[in-house]
C-alpha cells in the first residue's frame, strides 16, 4: 500500500559527485526513490554504491550534487542530520559496537535517557519488541553484541534502523552474511515496512533477491548512473548484467568434467572434532575435485576449514595430505605442505589493507621469493603482476594499497596468494561473498581451472545454488555434524534446506 502519489519521489539525489584524494568514486549519480517502494541499487564491485549511500547518510560530504527530500533541497553535514530527517542506514561494514549490549547498540546515538541517565528498562522493552518483529525473540537485549554471530549482528543493525523513525531505510548488502532462512525473514520485514509507506534502498549482488522483492532498479557503473527507473518485472537479467559490466557475461557455472576414478586422494580428514563446535567430521578430497560444504550460517563450516588448516587446534582426529599426517594446530605446517586457505572475512582475516597488492600476494611464499631471508622485490612484483594479469585484476596495478580495491578484486588477491604459492589443497570460505556477478563467474572459472590442474578444492558457501553448481561432491553440515554426502548433481536446493532447517542465527 503506497500512501501518496506513487510517482512523486520521496528522495531525489541528483548529479552526486564524490572525489576521494586520488580517486573519483562518484561522477554524477542520480537516484530517485518513491515512498513505499523497494528501490534496488545494482553495480559491480567498486561501482560506487556504498559511497552513494554514505553520501545519503551524511557519512561522506559530496563534492557536488543535490539531495532533495520531499522536494526540498537538503544537506546532511553529519550522520546525525540524516537520521533526524528519517534516513536510516544499515552499512555494508558491520557497524555495531562489540562491547555494548544489543539494546545499547540499537539506541546508540539516540539513547532513551533522562538527564543523561540511560533508561535501561524501557530500552530493553522496546528492543524486545523490535526483536520479536524481526523474528528473533531469542536475542536478549542485554546480550553483548560481541558474542553474536555476523548474522546476529546484521539483525541488530537492522533493528537499529527500525528504531529510528525512518522514512527511508538504506540496506547495503544486508543478505551477504545471512542464509536463506534469514533472508526470508528479512524480506518479510521489508514487506511490512513498505506497506507502511517506508522507502527501502536495497543493495545486493544477488539478482534473484532483487527479483523477489525489488520494485525498481538503478544501475551504477564506474560512479555514473547507467540505468534508471528500470522495472524489476520487465527488465531481463542479461540486460542488467550488460548495464553493470558493459559486456555480456555468461552467468553460469563452469562445466564439470568429472573426476577420474583413479584420481589420488589428496586430502583425507578422519574423525576431526573441535570441542563444542563440530565432531566426527570425516571427508576426502581427491586431486581435481571440488567438494562443497553446505549448511546454515553458524553450522560450523568455517571452523571445519580452519581446523583442517591448523588455525584451530583439533580436539580429536587426523588430517592427512597425500597420506602424510599434518601436525595439529599449526598453520605453518599446513602452508609448508601446500594447503591454502582463503578465509571468510577477507578484511579481518586475510589482507594487510594498507600494504600494496604485491606484498599481500607474496605473503605466504617467502620460501620461494626470498633467498636466505633477503627479499627480491623485483621477483615479488613480477610474480604478483603475472597473477594479477591472469586474474584480470582491476585496476591491474600491484603497487596499489589493497584498501582501495573493491571486494571482488580483494578476493582475487587472496586467490593470487595461493596461486603464487602453488597449492595442492585449497580451502575456500565464502569465496564470493560481496563479489559482483562479473567477478563471480571469473572466480568460478578460476576455481574450476585450478581443479582441472589437479588441485583439491574444498569450498564453503552459504549460497546453496553456488555450492551445488560449483562442486563435484557436496557435504551438508548441520549443527556441527555431517548429515549428508553425495554427488552435487543428485541433490537440489530444497533437499539441502530440509536437511539443515533447524538452525538458528544467534
Amino acid at each position, binding site marked *: 500500500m503506497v500512501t501518496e502519489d506513487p510517482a512523486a519521489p520521496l528522495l531525489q539525489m541528483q548529479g552526486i559527485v564524490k572525489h576521494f584524494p586520488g580517486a573519483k568514486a562518484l561522477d554524477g549519480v542520480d537516484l530517485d526513490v518513491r515512498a513505499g517502494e523497494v528501490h534496488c541499487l545494482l553495480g559491480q564491485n567498486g561501482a560506487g554504491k556504498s559511497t552513494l549511500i554514505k553520501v545519503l547518510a551524511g557519512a561522506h560530504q559530496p563534492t557536488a550534487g543535490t539531495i532533495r527530500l520531499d522536494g526540498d533541497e537538503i544537506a546532511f553535514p553529519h550522520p546525525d542530520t540524516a537520521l533526524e530527517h528519517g534516513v536510516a542506514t544499515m552499512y555494508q561494514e558491520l557497524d555495531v559496537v562489540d562491547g555494548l549490549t544489543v539494546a545499547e547498540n540499537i539506541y*546508540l546515538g539516540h539513547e532513551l535517557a533522562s538527564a543523561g541517565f540511560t533508561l535501561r528498562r524501557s530500552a530493553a522493552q522496546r528492543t524486545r519488541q523490535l526483536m520479536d518483529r524481526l523474528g528473533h525473540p531469542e536475542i536478549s537485549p542485554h546480550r553483548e553484541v560481541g558474542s553474536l554471530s555476523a548474522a546476529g549482528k546484521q539483525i541488530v543493525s537492522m533493528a537499529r534502523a527500525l528504531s529510528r523513525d525512518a522514512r527511508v531505510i538504506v540496506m547495503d548488502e544486508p543478505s551477504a552474511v545471512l542464509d536463506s532462512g534469514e533472508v526470508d525473514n528479512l524480506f518479510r520485514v521489508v514487506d511490512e515496512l513498505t506497506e507502511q509507506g517506508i522507502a527501502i534502498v536495497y543493495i545486493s549482488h544477488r539478482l534473484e533477491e532483487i527479483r523477489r522483492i525489488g520494485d525498481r532498479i538503478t544501475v551504477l557503473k564506474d560512479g555514473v548512473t547507467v540505468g534508471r527507473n528500470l522495472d524489476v518485472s520487465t527488465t531481463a537479467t542479461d540486460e542488467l548484467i550488460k548495464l553493470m559490466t558493459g559486456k555480456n557475461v555468461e552467468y553460469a557455472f563452469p562445466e564439470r568434467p568429472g573426476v577420474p576414478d583413479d584420481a589420488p586422494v589428496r586430502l583425507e580428514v578422519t574423525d576431526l572434532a573441535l570441542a563444542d563446535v563440530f565432531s566426527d567430521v570425516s571427508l576426502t578430497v581427491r586431486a581435481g575435485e571440488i567438494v562443497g560444504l553446505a549448511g546454515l550460517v553458524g553450522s560450523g563450516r568455517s571452523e571445519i576449514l580452519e581446523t583442517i588448516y591448523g588455525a584451530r587446534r583439533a580436539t580429536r582426529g587426523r588430517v592427512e595430505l597425500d597420506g602424510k599426517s599434518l601436525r595439529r594446530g599449526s598453520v605453518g605446517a599446513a602452508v609448508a605442505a601446500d594447503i591454502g586457505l582463503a578465509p571468510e572475512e577477507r578484511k579481518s582475516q586475510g589482507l594487510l589493507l594498507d600494504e600494496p597488492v604485491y606484498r599481500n600476494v607474496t605473503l605466504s611464499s617467502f620460501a620461494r621469493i626470498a633467498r636466505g631471508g633477503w627479499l627480491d622485490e623485483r621477483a615479488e612484483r613480477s610474480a604478483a603482476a603475472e597473477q594479477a594479469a591472469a586474474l584480470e585484476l582491476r585496476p591491474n596495478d600491484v603497487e596499489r594499497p589493497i584498501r582501495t580495491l573493491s571486494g571482488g578484486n580483494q578476493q582475487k588477491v587472496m586467490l593470487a596468494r595461493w596461486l603464487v604459492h602453488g597449492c595442492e589443497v585449497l580451502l575456500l570460505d565464502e569465496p564470493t561473498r560481496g563479489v559482483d556477478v562479473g567477478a563471480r563467474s571469473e572466480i568460478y572459472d578460476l576455481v574450476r581451472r585450478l581443479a582441472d590442474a589437479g588441485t583439491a578444492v574444498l569450498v564453503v558457501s552459504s549460497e546453496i545454488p553456488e555450492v551445488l553448481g560449483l562442486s563435484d561432491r557436496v557435504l551438508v553440515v548441520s549443527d556441527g555434524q555431517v548429515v549428508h554426502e553425495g554427488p552435487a548433481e543428485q541433490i537440489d536446493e530444497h533437499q539441502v534446506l530440509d536437511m539443515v532447517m533447524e538452525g538458528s542465527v544467534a
Partner: protein
Amino acid sequence: MSEQQTSSGAATHTPTARAGGRRTRGRLPGLSGLSGATVRNLGLVAALLLLCLVGFLTGGDRFASLTNLMIVLSLAAVTGVIAIGMTFVITTGGIDLSVGSLLGLTTVWASTLATQTMADQYGWIVMVGCALLVGLAAGLINGVVIAYGNVVAFIATLAMLVAARGLAELIANRRTQIVDQPSFETTFQGDLLGVPKIVWIFVVVAVAGWFLLNRTTFGRRTVAVGGNREAARLAGIDVKRHLMYVYGLSGLTVGIGGVMLLARTGAGSSTNGLLLELEVIAAVVVGGTLLVGGRGTIVGTVIGVLIFATLTNVFIINNIDSSVQQIARGAIIVAAVLLQQRFARRSKAG
C-alpha cells in the same frame, strides 16, 4: 590424562552445551550480559585476596588491622581517583600520560601564596576551584589536540607531561609550597566516621564513575567510541567532541586528586605525581580495561589500584629491601595478569 577426562566429560554434555552455546556463545550458561566482566574481576579479587593472605601470614596483626586498612585506602585514594578518569580515557582507546605531571601542576597552582591568600578571604573553595579548573583546562587542551588536531594521544599527552612539569616548576619557583589555610585543612584533612576524608572522596568518585560509565549516555558513548569509532560516528555521535570531554574528565579527576594530595601531604610541589602515570595506567589495565579500547571496568580499576597499594603496604610491613621489592613487584604484576586470564579462560571453558 586430565585432557582425556575433560573431553569425554564434554562429550556427555554436548547436547546441553550446544543448546546453551547457541544462546550465549560459549559463556557460562545462566549468566547475564555482565557475567564476562564479573568473571574477569573474580581473577582480580583472587589476586588481591592472595596478596592479603601473604600480608596476614607475614605481618599478622600489623597487617590485618583497621588502621592498616585505612592506611592502604588512603594510599590508594589519590591514585584511585585519577585511575577512574584514566579508565574512561583508556576505554576510548586513548591514553593520558600527563596525569602525573598535571597532578603536580594542580597542587602547585592551588597552593600558591596568591591562591591561599584568596582562600583566607573566600574560603577553601578558591583552592579547590583552582585545582579543578587547572586540571580540567589542561585535560581539555589534551582533548582538543588529540581530537581536533589528530595528534596521537600518546604524543599529545607526553608533550603535556613535559610542559606541565615545566610550568609547575616556574610557578612554584621549584620550591615546596606549604598549605597553611585553616578552612582547607579542616575541610579536607582528618577523618569522618573513622574513615579519612580523602578515602570518602575516593569512594564518591568511584561510585560516580561507575554510574557515569555504566548508566549514562556519556559512558555508553565512551565505550562506543573506543569499541568502534566509525560506528559511533555513523550513529550520529560527535566523536571528536566526546573525546575532548573524556580527556577533560581525566584532567578533572587529576584536579580532585590534587586537592586530596594537598590535604594529605599539606604541601604543593612540582614534584608531586612523578611517574604516577605509569602506575595509574598499570592499575587500570591490570584491572581489566582494554588498552585498545571498547571495554572499561571501574570495579576492576578500583581493585587494580588496591592491589598496588596493598603490595606497597605488604612490602614495607615486611621491611623488604627496595631493590628486591622492585623485582618482586615486576613478577607480581605479570602474575596478577596471568591469574586474571586464567580465570577468564576457565570461565569460558567451563
